[in-house]
């Protein structure tokens, strides 16, 4: 799966399928600080991401860059 991260913008390739929570944990992301979108659609924390998907992990915290 292609993973797009923001602030700063960067892309990673990771193997799937992978649970959203497992993906966030592997990247050190707090689920309270981000939205996860799979192929442009918002998904909940219990979703599983297929290997072929494009995932955006969008930070939602205003007031600085992480």
């Amino acid at each position: 799966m292609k993973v797009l991260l923001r602030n700063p913008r960067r892309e990673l390739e990771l193997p799937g399928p992978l649970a959203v929570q497992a993906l966030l944990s592997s990247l050190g992301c707090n689920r309270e600080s981000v939205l996860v979108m799979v192929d442009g659609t918002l998904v909940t924390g219990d979703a599983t991401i297929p290997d072929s998907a494009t995932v955006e992990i969008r930070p939602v915290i205003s007031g600085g860059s992480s």
Partner: protein
Amino acid sequence: MDVRRHNAAFCAPCFTRHCREQVKRAIDSYKMVAPGERVLVAVSGGKDSLALWDILLELGYHADGLYIGLGIGDYSDESASFTREFAAQRSADLIEISIPGEFGFDIPTGARAAKRAPCSACGLSKRHLFNKAALDGGYDVVATGHNLDDEAAVLFGNVLRWDLAYLGRQYPVLPGGLGFARKVKPLVRLGERETAAYCVLKGIDYIVEECPMSAGNRHLGYKEALNAIEQTSPGSKAAFYFGFLERIVPMVQPAAEEERGGLHPCPGCGSPTVSEVCAFCKLVSRAAERG
């Protein structure tokens, strides 16, 4: 969209309805806006202010937008563009003020001249200009996009320092009078994930990249600390903030009221200040001296 502190997950239509209901509940609970009043929404092109403006319009309020150009390069250009696009799509009225255009300096330059952090120069400029625009334009209230995460982080910082005057001013409604327009924060019942998700689900384009001037600031650190707690104990931020409003605000409001007693009009611009000259006039004059 899952909202863990509510122990709930929503489909798209129910989620956007949830957001509107939370805003309406905040407006009604704290008596923020009376029917028929004119609202000036402080918009930055970010998720919170655009979500707020959209929800207020959908709830039927007379809500115009005010965008302040800060002169921070591409960031300001892009945020202005998102704001204008939003306003155009909804045929909403947008007022624009350019600090470089009208006052001859941008925020980075002004901050250096006044020996202030950029966020400090930005905040005082925006507060001054929002207030002036509201009074000049005959608006009843200024609405800002401060959300639950913002308020919890500010509260956290004020508690760390035990700053009673700031704690006394931290309420979702600041009354008008003495040269101030009423200021309200209708998003206080929504977290940042919710306002971001609202924009995504409503197809509202907003600036995702953060202001380059704000990197590494203390406020962000407070948010990270609170989110670390929230991750293992959902609902902690809401309990912290709303518990403060219910139980502590009555004890600390006198400290803020005492400070308001020292207000007088600034000799430069007429805005209320406790100093000899208001902070914005001082900033303008120092930026002009620097040239």
